[in-house]
């Protein structure tokens, strides 16, 4: 032992000159860099990159150079980094005396039912579902199987995305929602008759209703098999659903699918300012559910312009849709599924409180699924290379570990939601409503009907009456826009 200590001391003494040399080099280099930064003219100064990058933003700077390099729209994974829904300005209100909190021995009901008017409604044990992320177009088969396994363990549903029917996914999923899609890959009875709910996909938050193409070089044999493609053929998602060129075509399609299958039939669209006009057709078609994908919705890869500059934020999509369904007398008859940028249990529960019967999560589910295994990818590859179809490390993903991580995540999320339900004095997540919320933003209060936290419930009207002059400029703007629309 003493011999080892002596040897270590000698080695450290030998390293001392090297350490001193490194310190000298660093000192000289930093001194020179600082001196140059001070003396050089700004236009010749490397420091100009700092304000320039701050001006355009790091992400925008990188996307400028990527566009300059590729000459085609860049494909940004996982959706917009912008936070457009002000979830943080809405808060839940615990109770103490006037209404009592829920006793701890009472179980909180977490189940929700989709399509209660259908012949075969779909009942979920938790209100969180796995969002539409397709095999091939987005994810690897292992990832789809892991998502399905986790969803089944948690008693919820997973979604096929715009793809054909993957046998392994069908086998692993207790409840599978399939997208009747614009590529046409799920649109035959042999496939859609094997689903537990059908979602007619006409758009998504991160892409709108734009067409998409997966080039044949990114399509493997398993992809071709599921999608029914020939070798060398691209996978094309059209902007319109084949066979649906009018409102009546859509209504007929909903009726036909309902009669043939008996499962809940839904419509999925990107949320937009035309929301009520779109929903009116959904009401006429008598769909069982509507999925609204807000502007913050994720994607495997899409152009930044479609992600950042198109659509309506999820929060306002929910409040507007709920109000519309209430006005039409179909609230809870047509279920609302909210999705797009929901990453915390608080946001998910707020979506439910505002009228959603359930939520889809995509990005958060993928992050939870990869979590422990990201060490297999970083620092030389991004964690997504473990899960996306074209990723370099998909064969390294451990399906069971991924599924378990996601199960733990879903459990933690639902338990956090249950905690909120208890402090609100509720016994079911779906009993939580707008009356359990307040907002700290007068505009959100005005727009959504959530009470303003600044003043007591009995003073809400007085507050808005007294501050009316402050809202006038915006009211004038709204009237002007309304006139332009008509």
């Amino acid at each position, binding site marked *: 032992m003493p011999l080892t200590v002596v040897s270590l001391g000698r080695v450290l003494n030998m390293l001392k000159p090297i350490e001193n040399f490194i310190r000298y080099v660093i000192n000289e280099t930093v001194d020179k860099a600082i001196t140059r930064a001070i003396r050089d003219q700004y236009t010749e100064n490397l420091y100009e990159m700092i304000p320039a990058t701050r001006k355009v933003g790091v992400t925008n700077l990188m996307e400028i150079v990527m566009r300059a390099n590729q000459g085609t729209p860049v494909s940004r994974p996982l959706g917009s980094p912008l936070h457009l829904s002000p979830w943080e300005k809405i808060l839940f209100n615990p109770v103490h005396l006037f209404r009592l909190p829920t006793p701890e021995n009472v*179980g909180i*009901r*977490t*189940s929700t*039912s989709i399509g209660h008017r259908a012949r075969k409604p779909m*009942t*979920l*044990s*938790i209100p969180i579902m796995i969002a539409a992320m397709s095999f091939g177009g987005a994810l690897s088969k292992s990832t789809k199987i892991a998502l399905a396994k986790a969803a089944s*363990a*948690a*008693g919820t549903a997973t979604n096929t995305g715009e793809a054909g029917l993957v046998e392994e996914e069908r086998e692993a999923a207790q409840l599978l929602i399939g997208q009747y899609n614009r590529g046409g890959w799920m649109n035959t009875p042999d496939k859609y008759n094997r689903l537990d709910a059908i979602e007619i996909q006409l758009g998504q938050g991160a892409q709108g209703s734009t067409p998409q193409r997966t080039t044949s070089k990114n399509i493997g044999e398993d992809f071709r098999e599921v999608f029914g493609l020939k070798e060398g053929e691209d996978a094309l998602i059209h902007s319109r659903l084949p066979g649906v060129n009018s409102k009546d075509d859509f209504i007929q399609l909903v009726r036909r699918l309902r009669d043939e299958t008996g499962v809940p039939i839904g419509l999925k669209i990107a949320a937009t300012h035309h929301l009520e006009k779109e929903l009116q057709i959904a009401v006429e078609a008598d769909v069982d559910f509507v999925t609204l994908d807000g502007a913050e919705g994720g994607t495997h890869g899409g152009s930044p312009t479609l992600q950042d500059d198109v659509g309506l934020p999820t929060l306002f999509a929910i409040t507007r849709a709920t109000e519309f369904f209430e006005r039409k007398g179909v609230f809870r008859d047509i279920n609302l599924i909210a999705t797009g940028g929901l990453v915390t249990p608080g946001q998910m529960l707020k979506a439910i409180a505002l009228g959603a019967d359930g939520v889809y999560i995509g990005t958060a589910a993928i992050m939870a699924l990869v979590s422990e295994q990201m060490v297999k990818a970083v620092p030389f590859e991004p964690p997504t290379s473990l899960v996306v179809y074209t990723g370099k490390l998909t064969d390294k993903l451990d399906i069971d570990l991924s599924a*378990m991580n996601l*199960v*733990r995540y879903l*459990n933690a999320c*639902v*338990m956090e939601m249950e905690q909120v339900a208890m402090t609100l004095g509720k016994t079911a997540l779906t009993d939580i409503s707008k009356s359990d919320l307040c907002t700290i933003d007068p505009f959100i209060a005005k727009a959504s009907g959530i009470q303003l936290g600044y003043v007591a419930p009995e003073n809400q009207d007085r507050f808005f009456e007294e501050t009316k002059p402050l809202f006038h400029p915006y009211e004038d703007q709204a009237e002007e826009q309304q006139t332009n629309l008509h």
Partner: protein
Amino acid sequence: MDKYHDLKNTLSYIHSELNRVETMAGTLSAIERDHYNKLTNFDHRELVDIAVEEQNAARQLGTMKHMCLAMAEKIEGIKNAIDRGELGESAQHAETH
């Protein structure tokens, strides 16, 4: 009305069994929740994973309880329709369309 006598008996049987299943699911759900609380007292990763599975089972049993309740209500509705003599009418109506 007599031709529906057997059907009514069968529906009564299903209704009563559904009530039993509902009660059993509720009890088991409470037990599973209790297991979750007990198992998370141990600082052991595998036990925590089992606890999470117990919690999932508790929720699914809770869901079964509510599914049973919904089905029992539907069966009650069919029984009432038979009593009001509406079942034959609606069947005839369905045949003509």
